[in-house]
């Protein structure tokens, strides 16, 4: 398991998300990346029924870990479980209800660049595209602090100054052994920001 960093690439005005994705993909291929299939990271949100204030539960899946299911509470506590956990959540219908129209996913191509795995995904919430997420994983390392400089170099060549600092959820844990749950936390942060941006954008219309 390597170290991954997820960044949201801002879509400049006048360009569509698809164009941005196209450009990024070309860049990766110029760097020497080879296409290695597709990937999808999705998130469903559940709200507690009885509690006040209501607690939120996010269920994430990652195609990179097909046998696993990640459950994250809003306090940051994560659970890594087998895919049967999905069935279990259905049994909890009376306590945790799915929030309608809150399913968000990041889908796209997966590239292999020797030790690196690059993923360029377009984020879609309820069918409409909301942004672009770039994930870079460096497989040999397990500690973020050791390889941050190397990753920063690659990231900056790809997405520029967006990758100035490590992702905020990763910053306090740079010296710990990296786990896949940390990747999902990063994705969740981005998904939440996309959701709030969408919610904010709606009343303006």
């Amino acid at each position, binding site marked *: *398991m390597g170290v991954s960093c997820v960044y949201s690439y801002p879509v400049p005005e006048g360009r569509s998300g698809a164009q941005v994705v196209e450009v990024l993909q070309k860049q990766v291929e110029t760097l020497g990346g080879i296409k290695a299939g597709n990937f999808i990271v999705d998130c469903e949100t559940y709200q507690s029924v009885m509690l006040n204030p209501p607690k939120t539960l996010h269920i994430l899946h990652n*195609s*990179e*870990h*097909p*046998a*696993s*299911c*990640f459950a994250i509470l809003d306090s940051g506590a994560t659970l*890594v*479980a*087998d*895919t*049967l*956990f999905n*069935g279990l959540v259905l049994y909890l219908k009376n306590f945790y209800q799915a929030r309608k129209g809150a399913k968000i996913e990041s889908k796209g191509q997966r590239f292999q660049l020797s030790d690196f795995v690059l993923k360029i995904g377009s984020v879609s919430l309820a069918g409409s595209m909301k942004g672009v997420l770039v994930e870079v994983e460096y497989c040999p390392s397990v500690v973020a602090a050791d390889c941050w400089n190397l990753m920063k170099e690659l990231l900056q060549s790809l997405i520029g100054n967006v990758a100035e600092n490590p992702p905020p959820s990763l910053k306090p844990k740079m010296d710990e052994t990296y*786990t*896949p*749950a940390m990747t999902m936390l990063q994705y969740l942060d981005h998904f939440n920001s996309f959701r709030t941006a969408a919610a904010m954008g709606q009343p303006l219309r």
Partner: protein
Amino acid sequence: MAAPSVNVCVEAALENPIQEVKYDGQEVYVAPLTMSENLSKLAHKINFFKDESEEKGKPTSEGERETDEEKVLAPFQPSLWPWDSVRNKLKSALTEISVLYDVLSIVKEKHYMVTDPVSQDAPELKAPLQMIAKKKSLVSVCQILNTGADRLKRVQAEMDSNTQDNFLWELLQLRKNWRLKKVHNTILGELSYKSAGSRFWQGGTFEVLKTSDLAAEGDVTNKKSSLDVSIPSELEGVAYIQVEVKSVPDLIDLTSATLKMPASLGAVSADAYWQQKLETAHNVLFCKELFAQLAREAVQIKGSTPHLVVGNQILTNVFPGFQLSIVLCHYTGKEKKVNLSPTKPEHNHVLEHSLHQLLRKVHDNNLNTSPPHPVNSMLGMTKRRRLAGPQAMSRQELVQMTHSESILEQIVKQTRHAVLRIRSMNVIDQLAITMQDPQICAHWSCLNNSLESSVRLTITSYCFEANRTPLILIIGIDNIRVILREGGTCVLSFEENELRDFLQWQICQHHAQSVQTLAKLHGWQVLSAIVSSGHGDIETYGTTSTVMLASPKGNVILAFHSSPVNGSKLSVKKVDTSLESNISPAVTAAKWASLAGEFKEVNLSQLEGRNLTGKIDMLMARLTVLS
């Protein structure tokens, strides 16, 4: 009362007294008395002669005869003294007792009278009558013994003959080993391995029969049991899997593929005990399943080398020049006698056993799923697979987990290892036998498995064992890993020659090392010791090791070259410092004065010494003295 009272039950014993005990141990009781009998018994106890007339005046019973006269003469006088009768009775009792007392005293005292037994005449002996009586009694005794003997004979005959009881007992024994079920009137049994996890299409059902008594009653039946089994026709005979590893010069020896080799197996006779018949049929089924599985894998799985399936034989190359042949030999007894091929096939029992074990393992995995057995999840997942979710294993790791080896692949691996091990053994042994100079000692490890073995080699020179070169060879499936003296490792391929060359090279290095050790012993200085020197021509394999030594005084220089191809060379240079003329001030010590010069080669074969190290030892000793 402190203690609780105990109920005590008192009852009369209802036992009837025993009248007689018969000869066969039966007891005959006295019949209990009926009511009327009991009454008459009690009536007999009544004393009807007792005088009661004075007391009660009742008419006496019939037994007593009292005259009317007496009755008239003696009128009933109730006013008479009431104790009169008692007094009379006591008087008479007294009289009787005194009489008895007198008699007893006479008998005891023996003063006046003596009692003497009266001799009676012996009864007349009637001999014929006695004989007849004795004969009768003997006859009755004989009759009793005869009946007993007849009964025993009958039981014995029953045990020997095939009766219903014997069949049932045999059936019980059969049920202990095999599964049986009753279908209408027949009893069927199961021969297949389905309950052990097999998924083979062919099942074996055998029928249990009673052997009918065809022979007449008087004949001695020579059948062993009253139970017989009928095996299905496709499982008749004897079968085994023959595994052979042979070296063929060509890639695949196709001529041997057409030879069927039913080796001289004993067929199962019809008279054999049912357990033997069933076991043989069971084995036939197992061999068939094993061969079917291997053939299927040979056809389906695309390995690095092609497998050839011809009839009942599977051929595959394990190494170039080595071929593994697996043959299903099924001898039913109906084939014509085939002349055995001139070369008797060498059956590899170890590999055959491995094949059996592998198939049993497959069966076992089919049945025994590893725990836990949850209700909601899939059964049969390994522990790693179950933990894949919670541990967030990546796609690569999951894909790796799905790889499983087939039986054919596994047996090919085992064969490869076996061949490699035997070949390495041969190489090492040959080298150890032919090479006298450094001695090679091989210790094979006891801890090995079918895919890996290890051997520890020690190269020493006789009498100079202080310096020894250890080598550890780990023989894998198709390569050999070597751990060298310094701890480095290298990997050799399966070629024989590579191992031989490598060992030769190590021997050369050992020589060079021994020369260095000698220098320490003699006090010579090692000027240079290079393991892989770049001097001279490039050899076909290995590298030259060179050592240069200087004597303590510095005037003799020894150069030793050891090469695996060209052998060992020794050259000596004697330096005479006095001859040197122009010595520049940069030269500080005499030994640096003449580094160049003529080296003269020494003829090692003519030196005295048992081995190379000994020879150089001798030479160095002499040179030290001379200088």
